[in-house]
């Protein structure tokens, strides 16, 4: 079902997290957002929750004008990515921007050799930070983008993978497993750009330092929208303080 608007359709994973929630708040009026949430949903009007003025409960509230379309999904479970893609396409007929913001991170301050904590976390890191973004990109390509090269280019359709500065730097605090998965995501992004460019889909990664402690969440959100409006592909865009 199309909404009949000319807003771009964004499929956003990790929508209930700090970054996803900020993106929804900042750009809910500009995009039709399919907000993929595990438990928490952003504090933005959706089909599941909306604002009401207690003194005029029947009155229209401006904040309800652009409602998110929330899909609850545990992306660690088999078949969930495919279910989300089907729902998104059924709801909006298209996806113009895929933002892979869902992720997993486990830092173990005693490092890689301290017991099995990080060893045991490796598969989960790679599943959530590499396989799930790849699976979303692949399923969207197979079910919508692959045979629409002209339309994709006209609509400037693209993928933004949310990576991390940890992918290219060695930080203390036992980030080894997390950092390796984000490094893999960066390289995967370059391959996506090379392969998906044939049918007009751009792919980039955004690698911010810690937010909101070192860089502002707002700047990360802006950078995502910036990549969506750009023409670059195959880039890993670092975002650091200053």
């Amino acid at each position, binding site marked *: 079902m199309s909404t009949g608007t000319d807003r771009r359709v964004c499929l956003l994973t990790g929508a209930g997290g700090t970054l996803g929630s900020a993106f929804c708040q900042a750009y809910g009026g500009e995009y039709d957002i399919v907000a993929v949430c595990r438990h928490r949903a952003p*504090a933005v009007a959706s*089909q*599941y*929750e*909306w*604002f*009401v*003025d*207690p*003194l005029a*409960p029947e009155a229209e*509230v401006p*904040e309800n004008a652009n409602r998110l379309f929330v899909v609850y999904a545990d992306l660690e479970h088999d078949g969930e990515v495919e279910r989300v893609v089907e729902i998104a396409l059924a709801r909006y007929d298209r996806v113009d921007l895929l933002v892979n913001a869902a992720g997993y991170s486990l830092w173990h301050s005693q490092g890689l050799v301290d017991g099995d904590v990080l060893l045991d976390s490796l598969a989960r890191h790679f599943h959530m930070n590499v396989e799930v973004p790849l699976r979303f990109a692949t399923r969207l390509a197979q079910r919508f983008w692959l045979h629409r090269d002209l339309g994709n280019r006209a609509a400037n359709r693209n993928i933004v993978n949310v990576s991390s500065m940890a992918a290219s730097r060695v930080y203390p605090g036992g980030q080894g497993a997390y950092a390796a998965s984000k490094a893999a995501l960066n390289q995967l992004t370059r391959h996506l750009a090379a392969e998906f460019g044939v049918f007009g889909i751009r792919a980039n990664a955004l690698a911010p330092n810690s937010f909101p402690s070192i860089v502002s969440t707002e700047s990360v959100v802006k950078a995502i929208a910036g990549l969506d409006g750009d023409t670059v592909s195959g880039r890993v865009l670092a975002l650091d303080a200053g």
Partner: protein
Amino acid sequence: MSGIVGPVQLDQMLANRRWVRRLRPFPHVCARDVFRSDVYRELHEEFRRIEREQPEVFHRNMEGYDATGTSISRFRDGPLGLFVSREWHDLIAGVAGVRATGDVNAALHHHEPDSQSGWPHNDLNPGWFAGSAPGPDEIRLEHTGGVAVQDGAHAPGAPARESIRAVSLLFYLANPDWQPGDGGETGLFADVATAHRGATTAVPPINNSLVFFECTPRTWHAFISNRGKPRNSVVMWLHRRKNEVLERWGDESIEYWN
């Protein structure tokens, strides 16, 4: 604000005009920063004053509910009278979309640190009130006119009327700063079968916030154990005519008091 004198001017007391209506796990409404800070401060201080000066009014008499409580009716001439005003009643009923009778049961509840979790219940209970139905500007409080609110026991010749809870509301006040992990939330459950796995949604007891919902046979909710910090709240129920409940859900849906 020092007590309820004349009409309650809610438009001048509310701070947040964007309450959130949520559908999951069942329809309910949440709001933070409900009242202006000066209004909230008076409510907070009144609760603290009662705790300090009249601790004997808090009684432990709620089966399966690890809290002490006292009726607001005895404090209705002070700041807490706001909660038993007709204006507040009508505002809550309007947002909930319920045709309420004007019968109100309202209390202050206090959970000591490490109070036990409650069991999921739906609040679709009867409430007995004295006299004929209140007029459009009236409120009828529990335990007035010699009528026992739960079983309707009353003196011979004293008219008593049974109504059913229509809206349950909790307003959190006079609590220590809440942090995730502190517990003390109000758990909302999609069903009873999986309640042992935890609440579907947990509403934290943040000062000057509220949660309320229309009572139905499936509005499962419960207090979640609080670790190390007390939890204080105003708990209140609006009521509806019993016939409405019988027509919508049948007599078997009503949770009669044992």
